[in-house]
Each structure stands twice: as C-alpha cells, then as structure tokens.
C-alpha cells in the first residue's frame, strides 16, 4: 500500500508540473504583457519594472525561475496589488474557500446518500417521484440561479420575520456559511442522489441481500449493514471529481454571496489580468485537487476490500 501511495504521489507531482507548465505557456501566449496597462510609461520605468518582475530575461530562463520558485512554494508578487505576495492572498482566501467547500461536500455527500437510499427504498412511490423531480431540477438549473434564488429567499424571509438568522451576504459566523454551502452543494447532491439510487437498486437485487432477508434479519439491519454499505462505494469514487466541481463552482457562490474566498480573488485577478495571482492560484488549486483525488482513491481502496492497491 505504501508503494502504491508513493507512486500515486509521484504521479501527482508530475501532474502538478504539467499544470504549472501549461499555465506558464498559456500566460505567456497572452497578447501583450502585464506591464502594458492603461498608464503610459517611459522606457526607463518600463525597463526597471521588467527587471523587477524578471521579465527582461529570456523565456526559458523565466520558466526555470518560475519552476524553482514554485518548488520553494513562492508564487511571486501580485502585479496589481502593490507589494502583496500571492502567498498572502492564498493564505487569506483559501481557508474561507476550503471551509465553504468542505461544508458543501459534506452536505452533498450526506444528502445524496440519504435521499438516494430513500428513493430506492420507496421506488416508484411518492417520495421517489418527488425527490427525483427535485433532482432533475437540481441538475438542470445553473448554480448561479440557485445562488440568486437562495439570496432572494433569504432577503424575503429576513424581511418577513424581521430577524436575521442567516445573513444575506458576507462571511464570519457559522450562520454566514449555511446557505452558501447548501447552494454550492446542491448540484453535486442531485448528481449523487441519482448515482446512489441506481447503485442502491442494484444492491437490493443481489443474492446476499435476499439471503439476509431470508435469514430473517431485521430490515433496519439489512438496510444499514448490507445495502447502504455496499451501495455507497460508487459514490465514494466520484467524490474526487465532485470536490473539484464544488471548489471551482465556489467562484459563483463566493461572487454572489460576497464571500472573501480564493475564488473571488481569482475572478478579480482574471478581470484585472494579474498574471502572478492567476498562475499562483491555478497551480495551487490544481495541486490541491490532484491531492484530493489521490486521497479519495486511497480511501476507496481502504474501504472496498475488492480493490487492491497495486503499485
């Protein structure tokens, strides 16, 4: 198992390098350069600035420096925010985004598993029909519409009760986190419910469940020990990509709910063409996602005895 983990980590490292290289190439393919902004500058100032950011060196040399600094965990200084290090921005924004993302993943996974199991148990009866209708809605309505509607509902509820349990926007307390993470997790949850439902239906028709039933085990026990535990496996495999979808989907939710997370910094940096911040956050996000997928795979190997973690 250890060899497998090491191999996966090595592979992940190569992936991160690939991400960094593609990012570097993409940023250098941009027409113009970061210094040709709206302000006109004299050639001397321009030369000095290029020297400051290392833009006067040949591209290969810049690439080498970029990789060397990245290996040290240094993503450079922001172009638009004076003397602010990209690391500072990540340090400030990432915990917020991560909290939001983790809450959303937990919500999506819990809700997906429970509702999925429920629909399978009540197949073709009222709860199934209602939940599956909501699921189809959840899959086909874009996340920003949910975010907007969620905020609108909050405004109305707060105005109606005259008392703010869940604030409409911002960040800080637990109450700030509830609604945005619900909204963020909704799409993924809908997807997981569908997956869980079909996997649960498959498990229900297996021989071991029939055996358990014929042994006369209590239904609750069959449900928990035999059906749920086995049906949950496919859900775990898609958790890795789901985390990726949720973290990037966080951009919109952070934008709508005015949450000071990394996604908002990224969107801002993109709009202001702040190259170092874009490169830094992309590589950071990429590395984070690669790590998440590896962790999910390892966990999957641990909980499913049929999967051997081969090196």
């Amino acid at each position, binding site marked *: 198992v250890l060899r497998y983990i090491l191999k996966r980590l090595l592979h992940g490292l*190569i*992936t991160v390098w*690939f*991400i960094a290289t*593609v*990012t570097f190439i*993409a*940023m250098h*393919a*941009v*027409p113009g350069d970061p210094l040709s902004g709206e302000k006109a500058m004299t050639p001397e100032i321009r030369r000095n600035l290029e020297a400051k950011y290392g833009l006067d060196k040949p591209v290969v040399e810049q690439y080498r420096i970029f990789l060397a600094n990245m290996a040290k965990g240094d993503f450079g200084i922001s172009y638009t925010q004076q003397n602010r290090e990209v690391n500072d921005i990540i340090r400030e924004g990432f915990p917020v985004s991560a909290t939001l993302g983790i809450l959303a993943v937990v919500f999506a996974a819990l809700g997906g598993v429970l509702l999925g199991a429920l629909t399978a148990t009540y197949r073709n009866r009222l709860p199934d029909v209602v939940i599956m209708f909501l699921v*189809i*809605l959840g*899959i*086909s*309505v*874009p*996340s*920003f*519409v949910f975010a*907007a509607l969620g905020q*609108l509902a909050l*405004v109305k509820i707060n105005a109606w009760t005259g008392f703010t349990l869940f604030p409409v926007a911002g960040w800080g307390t637990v109450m700030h986190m509830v609604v945005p993470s619900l909204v963020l997790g909704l799409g993924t949850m809908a997807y997981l419910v569908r997956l869980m439902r079909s996997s649960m239906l498959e498990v229900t028709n297996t021989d071991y469940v029939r055996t358990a039933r014929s042994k006369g085990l209590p239904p609750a026990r069959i449900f928990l020990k035999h059906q749920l535990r086995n049906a949950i496996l496919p859900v775990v495999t898609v958790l890795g990509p789901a985390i*990726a979808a949720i973290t*990037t*989907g966080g*951009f*919109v939710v952070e*934008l*709508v709910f005015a949450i000071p997370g990394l996604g908002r910094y*990224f*969107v801002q940096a*993109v*709009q202001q*063409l702040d190259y170092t911040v*874009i490169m830094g*956050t*992309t590589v950071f*996000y*990429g590395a984070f*996602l*690669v790590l998440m*997928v590896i962790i999910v795979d390892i966990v999957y190997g641990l909980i499913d005895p049929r999967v051997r973690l081969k090196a």
Partner: protein
Amino acid sequence: MTDTAITAAGFEPVHVDRQVQVLTRPSLSYWQDAWRRLKANRRAFVSLYIIIALLLFTVAGPWVWTVDPSTQDLDQVSKPPGSDRRAFVAEPYQPWEGVRAAVPEGAASSSPPANFKTVGSTTTQAVRLTWDPVPGASGYRIYRNLFAPTPGGALGLPLGDVLSPEQVSFEDRLDLEPMTYHYAVLTLDRFGQPVSAPASLPVNVVRVITPAQAVERGLVAAEADAKVGDELKLALHPLGTDYLGRDLLARLMTGARVSLLIGIFAPLFYVLLGIAYGSAAGFMGGRADSVLMRFADFVVALPFLLFMILFKIAFGIGPGESGIFPMLVALVLLSWPSTARLVRGQILQIREEGYIGASKLLGARTGYLVMRHMIPNTMGVILVTLTFAIPSAIFTEAFLSFIGMGVAPPTPSWGSMCNEGIRTMLTTPHELIFPAVLISITVLAFNLLGDGLRDAFDARMRSRE
C-alpha cells in the same frame, strides 16, 4: 460382383420432416431496435420535440421576429412583458421659467408649504410643481417617492433644493416613467435644515411622445400623421425589455444561437477528436497506447474551469469580437480525453469479440473491420456521450459568461443575460427568469434525451427482454 450403374435417376432427396426454426417477427437492425425503444420512452421523446422546438426557435425565430436585438428602445427600459404601451402625442418640450411669488410678511412658520399642486399636464417630459411661499423660509426641498408617504417614513429621492424663498416652483425631468409618483416639499431654514413637515402630492404621470420621436421610432409614417393628443402604441416587446431597453425575445433568440452553437459544436468537435485519439490508441496498443493515454490522464487532471478561464485569457478577445471562437477552442482542448478514453476502451473490448475474429478469418481487411464493425458498435455509446456533453457545455458557457469571462458584450448569450438580469432581480425579475428558464429547459431536455438514448442503446437492457 454385379455391375450397377449409378445414374441420377437412382437418387431422390430424402424427405426432411424436421421443424425448422422460423422467424416470426421481422428482423430489426441495431438502429431500428434502438429507435423503437426510444419511441417507447415518452420522456425522451418529449425531450426530443423540445430540442427540435428550441432549434426552430433559434434558427427560424429571427426570421419571424425581426427585431434587432441590439436596438435600444429608450421609452421602454426594463419593462416586464405585458406592460402598458400607450403613449400620447405631445408638443416638443418647452422650457419653463417657473413661478415666483412674493413672500408674505410674518413670523417664521413651521407648517408645510400650502397649496402644493402641479402646473399644466404631468407627462414623461416634465412634471411642474408649485406651492405657496412660506414666511421666514429661505428655501425648499423637493422629494419624489415611488410609494405613498407614511408618517415619519422616508420621503424618497431628494430631487433638489430651491435656494430662494420667492422661487416657489420646481420642474422634475429626471427619468420619468408613466406611473404614480408621490412628491413632497418642505421648507428649509437659512442653514439648509428642514424646518417644516412635508406637504405631499400624488402625481399621475402620462407617457408622451413628440411627433418627431414617433416617426423616429417607426410608430407613424410621417409627422403629419401624429396629431397632438393622439394615442399611439409603442413598439411591442412580447417578453419585455432589458436594462438597456433591448428586446428580450430577440436577445433570447440571438443568445440561443451562441449557447447552442457552443453547446452543440464544441462537443461535436471534441467527441470527433476523442474518437480519433482513442481509436488510434486502441488500435496501436502497446507502448504508443500507454504514452497516449498517459498524456490524456494529464489533460484530465487539469482543473477544468480554471483552465477554461486561463485559455480564454491566453487567446484574448480583440475589439469587436464576440469571443465565441476562443471558448470553442478552449472547450475542445480540455474536454476530449473523456471521449478518447471511452472510445479506446470500446475498441479494445470489441477487438477481442468473436465476430471480429470470424470476420478476420473470412479475410476482412482492417478498413472493412473498422467501418463495418468497430464504428457502428461504438456509435451508440458515442451518441450517448454526445448528448450528455451538450448540457455540460451549455452550463460551462453560462458559467463563464456569468462570471464575465464568456462572450463579450454586446453579443448576448443566455449566461450573460442571466448575469445582467441578476443585478435587477428584485425590481425586474423577468430579465433573469427568461434566460434562466431557457437554460434549464434546454439542459433538462438534453439530459432526458441522453437518459433515453442510453436505455435504448444499452446492451444489458436488450438481453433482459
């Protein structure tokens, strides 16, 4: 040994008295069978009709509804569907010198200005207000409110201060809409502080249009046709207008072109690329296969939306360009590996099938194998992937346009229309609702059709019958 001559007459066919298997039902090809199943699936079929209707809406719609999506109708900005379109023809605006009156002598009064009333007709050109001078006042302040005043409540938008006690009139020309406003006026002391309670007045504003404007908007043929006092109807906007007064129906049609163009062509291109890549890897096998698939793994690992944004910046959008092409290219560059993997897996699987072996034994060449066996057998799976890829591409486009990284204005797309609509969600929800509902219906229809196709092509389902 007797010689017996073997002649044909000595033989007769043995009578076969065995019941041969007879096909009682017509034989169906793979595609006929899939089509039959799809027709039986009502949800998928309704979705198919919806998709056809959407395509008609997009392709044929602009011929039926020929309003230019970029024309601004400044008489009707942010109007929901079915709003009042009446307008009366009036003379062009004439300047007004206002009303001046002598301030009566007397002790400073803190009562609200008396006799607060309108002068002339109150139209969208101007609302003219006047009131009696108040002794001891050094000025007046005028407010305009959308709601009826409540005691102690807000007075609304402060329109302006009149800094002379004799000047007892005010002309409001600020963005007037045909509706009822509640004006309020109060007295100011010499420090500019309000000293009196407000006097308020509800005013019904009528929409007017000058003959010249009527001709310009295309409502009448010539200025002579529009007589003062005539009632005209402004241009029709079946789904209302957006915040710049552009026709929503026309914009939705043009936006549908962008969304569906990206939604259909991007998956088409990357599925084709994936087929080429995947079948190449599957056929070559061995070392080439593992190198090709390793590269595909790296591309899969790229965080999708981040790189969509990154590529969009890298390609850049020149002035006057819509940015559709860069988005297509970025989508294709990032999305092909999943199809490639799928096709490779299919090819590897089919290569080992018995009928391929049989075909080879009969002397089939590689080209024939590919065309006759490989491609038709992967087609079903590919078609299903394509149907599911379309909604996700539409979502991606909407997401990017929503955060402002999608198509560049003024080109409309459903995503960017949602983005614009969300800002005025509370006052004019129709600007958000229409594009959002269209996105949802489209995505829903493609998803349900995809489900139906998957069921129709699924070999496991077929054997169960």
